[in-house]
Structures are given as structure tokens and as C-alpha cells.
């Protein structure tokens, strides 16, 4: 049984949207993070790169931004500019999350 389970193909896993924050420097390197370790690094990098691009692009368009909020139907990403880097907050939205009164 042990051998069989060793040979068994690992089942694909659905990735939950993470809740937490992270700080990155101007190169996109993660300095600190409270995101769950189960959340894939490539997805963290994708978030960071897109957000840093948006800050830089805005500056080039003469629209310097201190904060970006990206609202998806299931996730809210808040990013604060930090001397070329950024501090990011990720908050999943669910139907059963307590709403604002």
C-alpha cells in the first residue's frame, strides 16, 4: 500500500485566495509576508510585478499614486507605494463575509 500511494499521481489542488499582507522592495523582492505558505510563489510574484508596473506606469503618465486598490469580484488588493517598492494587502471577498452595516 505504501508503495502504491508513493506512485500515485498527486491530485491537483485548487488554490484558495490568500488573506494577508506583504512588503516588497523596488526590485519586487519580498521583504516580509504574512501570506500563507501554501499560496504559490509564482502567484505572489505575479501580483507584485503587476502592482509595481502600475505604480511606475502611473508616474510616467504624470499621475503619481500613493495607493492603488484593485477590486475583483472575489478579491481586493490594496497596495501602498513605499519608496519604489510597495506594501500590499490581500483580502478575499466571500458572500458570507460580514457586510458593512
Amino acid at each position, binding site marked *: 500500500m505504501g508503495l502504491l500511494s508513493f506512485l500515485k499521481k498527486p*491530485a*491537483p*489542488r*485548487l*488554490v*484558495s*485566495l490568500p488573506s494577508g499582507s506583504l512588503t516588497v522592495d523596488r526590485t519586487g523582492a519580498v521583504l516580509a509576508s504574512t501570506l500563507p505558505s501554501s499560496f504559490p510563489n509564482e*502567484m505572489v510574484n*505575479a*501580483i507584485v510585478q*503587476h502592482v509595481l*508596473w*502600475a505604480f511606475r*506606469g*502611473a508616474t*510616467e*503618465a*504624470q*499621475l*503619481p*499614486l*500613493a*495607493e*492603488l*486598490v*484593485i*477590486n*475583483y*469580484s*472575489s*478579491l481586493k488588493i490594496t497596495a501602498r507605494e513605499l519608496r519604489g517598492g510597495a506594501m500590499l494587502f490581500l483580502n*478575499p*471577498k*466571500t*458572500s*458570507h463575509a460580514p457586510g458593512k452595516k
Partner: protein
Amino acid sequence: MTPEGQTTRHRILLVDDDPSLLELYRQIFAQLPSSPEILTANSGSRALAMLEAERFRLLICDLKMPKMDGLQVLSIVRRKYPELRTVALTAIPDEEFRSRVYSLGVDLFWHKPSTQQETEMFLECLESLLGQEVDNGFRGVQSKSLVDIVQLECLSQSSSVLRIANGSLSGKIWIQDGEVVDAEAGELAAEAAFLKILSWRAGTFETLPADPARQRAIFKSYNGLLLESAQAMDEARGEAANNGHTNGAPAAPLSPFAQMSQIEGVEFVLALKDGESGHEVARGLENPERMAAWTRQSLQHFHTLGDQLGAGRLEQIEGLGPQRNVTVAPRDAGLCVGWVHTVKPGEMRDRMKKALEVWDC
């Protein structure tokens, strides 16, 4: 391939990484009364390539797949092919994923059927989805008018919360033991919110679990409420028909663009056009080309990111800066509204809702 002449035969694309399940479902779906053509794909990327090449009526997608999971596939499909009916199949009874699937605008979230009865119910739902017209009604489990949905819930003495979305607008109706007890839509509450929601002609709805703790704020019977909403809609139609015919000459209505630029705090409105560089600006903007390029690319970046994460529809991007604030919304090729920097984020959100209501009209 579809034989020539059989133009009404619908096509279903079935996506699962397990070939034995694909074959099993192909056999099950062959029992559908409308005899659709069933094609299969064993990965998300293959499914996207097939959708690019051929026209389908319905996509049925497993959630757990390697490399590109079902949420990522559905996220891309909902954005690129909004007219395509979509079903998410899963073996995971998980509330988080159910919620995420519906927030993507998927028509149906279904646990993989394991009994004959479940299979029959599933086939009925699929047949219903295959037969639906795209343009009218509310997209939820079945395409019905909102009045039908409320009536069904009330007649069956159900307790539930209906969440209804219509473009940028959204609302909720609380039903307890077959009576409408409360509603909210934006700043409106109770009866006013109920009437507002029922005036929407199309959208999506989702049934959420009952909320028995909700305090009753509507005391009329559901029949009375529905009658009132029908009267209000008739009156609105009458007013619309009479509009512009008073004083002899019709008044020229302001364009949505002009109306948006008159909202308090708006510095500029920039609407992108399809193509690489087209745009239209209302009010002064000193560098429209750069702003248009940033808006276009930001939307591309964050659409891509949303697809990668399976985070659902990109609703909007807000930027706060020392000189001005902006809101970017994925309307048409892209819409960017600039605000004076003194407008606070909460106010900006409320005003953007109003701006999008104008734009969506």
C-alpha cells in the same frame, strides 16, 4: 463536426483532466433531449484553444485540474465569451469555491452527480441552459424574470437571500418563510430598494442562505409589493414615452459623457475606444495619450492577474495620489475618471457608482 443544415444543434465543450470521466460524461450528456454535439478537452489551455476556433453554446468545466485550474479557465471564458453558458463541476462541497464560481458569473455550480436522480436533475438543468436566450432575464440557475424568481421563492414558503447584480448595481432581497422582509440597493433600503431592484430588466442573481436574524423592514405582502412594482414600472414607461414631447420640441438630452463630467469632483473623463490608441476626453486633461496608454495597459495587466489568480471579474481600479485620484473601470475598451485629490475614497466610490449608472444607461 456538425452536419450541414443542422444549425440549431448546440455544442457543448466538456473540460476535465480525467479521460475516463470525460468519456463517462460524454455518454451521459448524449441523453440530453436536444442531442447537442459534445466535444471534450483534457486541459484548460486546450479548451481555450477550442473556444477560440469554434463556437459553443455551453462550457462544462471541472474545477480541479493541473496547471490551469477550472477557476482560471472560467475567469478567462467569462470575460472573453460573455454569451457562453458556463457550468462548474466539482467534487468539493466548499462554500468558498461556490461563492467564487458564482462571483465569476458562472451559470451553475454543481457537485459531480453520483446517483441516477442527481444525474437526471443535472441533465434537466443543462437542457434548460441550452435552451435559454442570452439577452433577457436574470442569469442564475435558470433564466427567469425577477418577478418570477421572487414569486417562486415566496410561493414555496422559502427562506433565502437573493443577491442581484445588474452591471455596476447590486442589491439584496431577504425572504423569510415566504415573505419579503427586507431589501437593500445602494443607498436605498426596505420597500424603496425592493422596487428599485425589480425595475432592473436583466442581470444575474444568486441565492444565498437564509438570514433569520434580519430584522423585518417590509410589512406588505409579496403580492402587494409585486403589484406596486408593476405599477411603478408602467408609470416609468409612460413618463419615458412622454419625455421630450412637452413644450412642443424635445429637449436635447446630455450625453452620458457630459453627464459624468458634471458629477461633483470629476476632473476628467477618459473613454478608450477599441483599437490601439483611440480615446475621447471630456474636460481638460493635459496628457490624454499617456493617461490613455496607462489606463489601457493597467486594465490588461489586472485582467491577466485576475485570470491567473481566479479572482473573478475585475470591477475597478482606484488610484489615490497627491495631485489627483483616478478610478479605472472595465467599460467598453476602458473608462478612466479623474477626481480632484480632495475627494475622499468613500465619496469617490459612491460618485463612481453614479457615474457608471449614467454610463451603463
